């Protein structure tokens, strides 16, 4: 009897399959300004010194990390994130695909928008497909004498 129950339990677990992984979105809000006082990059922005050699980062020389958030993303479920300028970033995971061998690569298709209640959307629609761990940026929002860069990175679980 005990053996039968054990077998049933194992069969039940096997049929359930692996738990569905939920990707995590990392959002970093970076404030960039141009200062005559010299360049300064927040120590938390480890990769940014490399990026600042190129447009549009080269327009600024002071970078400060204002906020950081990790957000689990489920397919088809929009997640909203309030920005420091009063706008809201909304991100939806559309789907996840995996490219085939010899270089399998998990690709995240996401849809984003930046809006503000009662005003015309700053960014009505952005659709991006990015590899795991591959950051991309949304820039251009003016904020306190500079601009905001939103860095978005998706990670698997």
């Amino acid at each position, binding site marked *: 009897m005990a053996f039968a129950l054990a077998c049933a339990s194992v069969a039940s677990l096997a049929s359930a399959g692996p738990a569905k992984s939920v990707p995590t979105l990392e959002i970093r809000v970076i404030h960039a300004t141009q200062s005559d006082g010299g360049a300064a990059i927040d120590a938390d922005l480890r990769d940014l010194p490399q990026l600042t050699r190129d447009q549009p980062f080269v327009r600024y020389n002071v970078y400060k990390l204002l906020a950081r958030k990790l957000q689990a993303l489920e397919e088809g479920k929009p997640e909203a994130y309030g920005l420091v300028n009063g706008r809201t970033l909304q991100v939806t995971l559309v789907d996840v695909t995996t490219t085939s061998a010899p270089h399998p690569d998990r690709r995240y298709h996401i849809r984003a928008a930046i809006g503000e209640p009662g005003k015309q959307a700053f*960014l009505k629609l952005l659709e991006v497909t*990015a*590899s795991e761990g591959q950051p991309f940026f949304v820039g251009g929002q003016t904020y306190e004498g500079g601009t905001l860069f939103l860095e978005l990175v998706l990670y698997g679980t």
Partner: protein
Amino acid sequence: MTLPRETVLDLMGLADGMLEGDAKAKAEQLVASNEEARLLVDTLRASPVGDWVRESTDRQASAAVAGIADSVMARLAADASGAVEGGVVRMAPWVRRGSRRGPAVVAGVGAALVLAASIALYVRSGSQRSDEELAPVASVAVPPVGVPSVALPAPSASASQAEAKTAAAGGVEVNAVEAPSRAVSVFRIPMGAAAAAANAPHPSSVVIWVEEDTGTK
């Protein structure tokens, strides 16, 4: 980089010496500030097709409609390999935003066919993917690094709407951008030594830059 079809028409008109007034000034300003615009105008001016277009518009176009199209297609096909570098530009049919058109762009039926054929071949010269031909605006093979890969001009109508695909070799692919009444640029950037040292599979990234309205925030 990708220019809207209407802008390409204006640039072709500029290359052919057919633009005047504000349209000409705007086109010249674009050429001065935009690498792709400059490349297009230089290519058209340097090409025997450009000379031929200019000559054609001075003739009675209606008498040679069919011949013009065939001739342009043949000449452009022969010239296409050197007209645009390595598939940098791929554009697809697009619904025009407004009714503005350079007054001299269409100088007659023949000239219109010439321009249309030129656009078609200019577009095709960099395109290898027939499945992208119905994309609303453009598909772009992104230049290596450090330059705007897609420049979507500020709209004259209600919205700036585009679909743009960066090179699909992994990394970040921008599928669509829509920002009403704002100019949008997409920059491809290298992730630099840090990514290379970490053996990152796709050591590059993308910045989607949306111009803020003046006076906000």
